[in-house]
């Protein structure tokens, strides 16, 4: 009886440990990884083909792009219950939540559209025509600019979030996948999967200021395909997933030089940091696992089996 009570009293603690949420594209589930134990503690069913995943800024709900269900699902992260769906346009792949915590900017991959949804009224407030196969989504820290990258048009589209109109289009290398503003809002980084590069734009002038190439010994250059990336604490280093090259590159954000390549699982897609950014969790699509990287030593320390084709990753602190 006493043991029972003890176990029960431990439960709230367990629920409070930070977690990494991983969408499994071909299992229609989310795997929840406990950061303390590095184990999968929960597997939660979702809509069809879950890819993009992000938490509300207060972490009260989690948004999931259920691509083949043509909806963004809103889930209670405590219970794993789907609270409701948001209208998202067709085939939502990635999205970004505006700093106002109210507007989701969603890339509709099959429709060449970026949809803006008000998560409170649950209504579409704008649809913006963009290039073919929109994918990467980013919003500037001040909330003034949103970015959509389009994979076949090979552009970053700069959207004024006030007027919801495109204010600039900049060409990047083939098949842009992911976009991210630096913390100070001065730079925009865009990865190009087939181009094999990451382009860095000066946000003020919207001009390209640098381009990063990658080269891994023993890996054919065609297989070095940058996709997702994240910035380390203080924007000192970028960690760039290189897809079928099965490595994550560590890029110095001042010199734009690659300092290291870390071996991870097969076809690495996206990643998320632990709350103190000491650990990085990468989703490896083909091998169906998540690699845990120790950021300080830049060593992979564990791989965690998740569902089939893990794609997106998000931190729940």
């Amino acid at each position, binding site marked *: 009886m006493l043991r029972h009570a003890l176990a029960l009293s431990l439960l709230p603690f367990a629920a409070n440990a930070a977690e990494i949420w991983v969408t499994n594209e071909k299992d229609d589930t989310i795997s929840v990884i406990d950061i303390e134990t590095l184990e999968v503690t929960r597997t939660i069913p979702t809509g069809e083909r879950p890819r993009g995943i992000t938490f509300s800024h207060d972490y009260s709900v989690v948004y999931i792009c259920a691509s083949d269900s043509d909806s963004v699902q809103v889930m209670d992260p405590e219970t794993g219950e789907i609270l409701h769906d948001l209208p998202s346009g067709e085939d939502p792949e990635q999205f970004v939540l505006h700093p106002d915590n109210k507007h989701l900017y969603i890339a509709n991959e099959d429709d060449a559209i970026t949809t803006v949804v008000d998560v409170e009224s649950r209504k579409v407030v704008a649809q913006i025509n963009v290039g073919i*196969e929109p994918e990467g989504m980013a919003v500037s820290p001040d909330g003034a600019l949103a970015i959509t990258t389009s994979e076949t048009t090979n552009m970053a589209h700069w959207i004024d979030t006030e007027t919801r109109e495109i204010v600039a289009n900049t060409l990047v290398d*083939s098949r842009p996948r992911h976009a991210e503003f630096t913390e100070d809002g001065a730079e925009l980084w865009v990865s190009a999967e087939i181009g094999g590069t990451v382009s860095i734009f000066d946000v003020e002038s919207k001009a390209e200021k640098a381009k990063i190439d990658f080269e891994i010994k023993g890996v054919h250059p065609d297989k070095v395909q940058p996709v997702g990336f994240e910035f380390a604490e203080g924007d000192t280093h970028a960690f760039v997933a290189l897809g079928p090259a099965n490595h994550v590159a560590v890029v110095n954000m001042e010199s734009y030089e690659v300092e290291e390549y870390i071996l991870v699982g097969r076809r690495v897609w996206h990643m998320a940091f632990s709350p103190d950014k000491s650990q990085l969790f990468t989703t490896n699509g083909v091998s169906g696992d998540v690699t845990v990287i120790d950021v300080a030593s830049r060593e992979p320390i564990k791989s965690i089996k998740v569902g089939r084709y893990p794609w997106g990753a998000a931190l729940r602190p």
Partner: protein
Amino acid sequence: MRAFLALVAGLWATAATATEADTLSVKVTYLRVETPEPPTLSNLEARPEDLGRAGAELGLADNATTGSFLGQTYALETVSVPEGESPLDAARAALAASPYLVIDAPADALTAIADLPEAQAALLFNATAEDDALRSEGCRANLLHTAASLSMRSDALMQFFAMRRWADIAMIEGPRPEDTAFAAALRASATKFGLEIGAEKQWAFDADMRRNASAEVPLFTQELGDYDALLVADETHDFGRYLEFNTWLPRPVTGSEGLVPVAWAPVIEQWGAAQLQSRFTEAAGRPMAPEDYAAWAAIRTLGEAVTRTSTTEPAAIRAYVLGDSFELAGFKGRPMSFRPWNGQLRQPIALAHARALVATAPLEGFLHQVNELDTLGIDAPESACTAFGG
């Protein structure tokens, strides 16, 4: 007053942009030279009316969307030359309107069009003819190839045989010239990868195989002895389909049927291909075929080159497309580019059956000093093409 001036300046800027946009309009002609269709035993499939053309239309839509952000416009004209009419007249008319042609025609018609005086400053794309001669001794400087060559396909299949260690190979060859050419390509590819095709038989039935395949094929294939896998050269898809599951020994059928090497197949879904497939199916109402893919790739090549160079001048487009900085994202997992020695689009080749993709060539371990894609088809040292300055 100041506000008024600013407004005027604003109008001027708009006008300038519009003029600039007008200068970058790209016209392309999709030219089909109709050929007689050989009869086949099965009535299951008919050639889609828009085979190839539907791919060109999708490529144009892709280009137009990109162009809309850059003030570039794209237009596609479709011309089909009925059997018995001169393809050269149609080609001349098309060349008078635009220097860019995507062509679905047999090799002799292609060469004749490329040799027209009107075509000398033009840029032509071969979207269907697989003949290796067009990429070697019969090449033309103004003719690029987005269709995979026969040897690219046969090399892909033989890489798979080598990887799986299917060393004892038998082959059944059909009676048509296409079958002879594919069989010859398979023999050459086998040699290239250290293999040899052993027992061979010519297909020699004129009965309706739908009714008696189960009776005839076991006996016919019994004479091949033992082997690991059976190749069938039946490029018009006449009899090959009746071999599967009817061979004397239980062996896989590959080549023109069963496991096939193709530039595109409806079962390709990785590398974002699912998006291309769904866009195509939505537009055309049928799955995407290799002919559609090659036409799409030709139009996209043109669009990509115009976007990157901001010019529509054929010589500049040709130079850019054949240069090092050109790359086309073709939904096959690797950047595609053109071989500067013969104008062939480098591309992975799918090894697929009706329900799934089995592998994608070049396969792991087939290395090349420059580009692994050049393990498929005619590599620079083997090419007898001189028109590209080689």
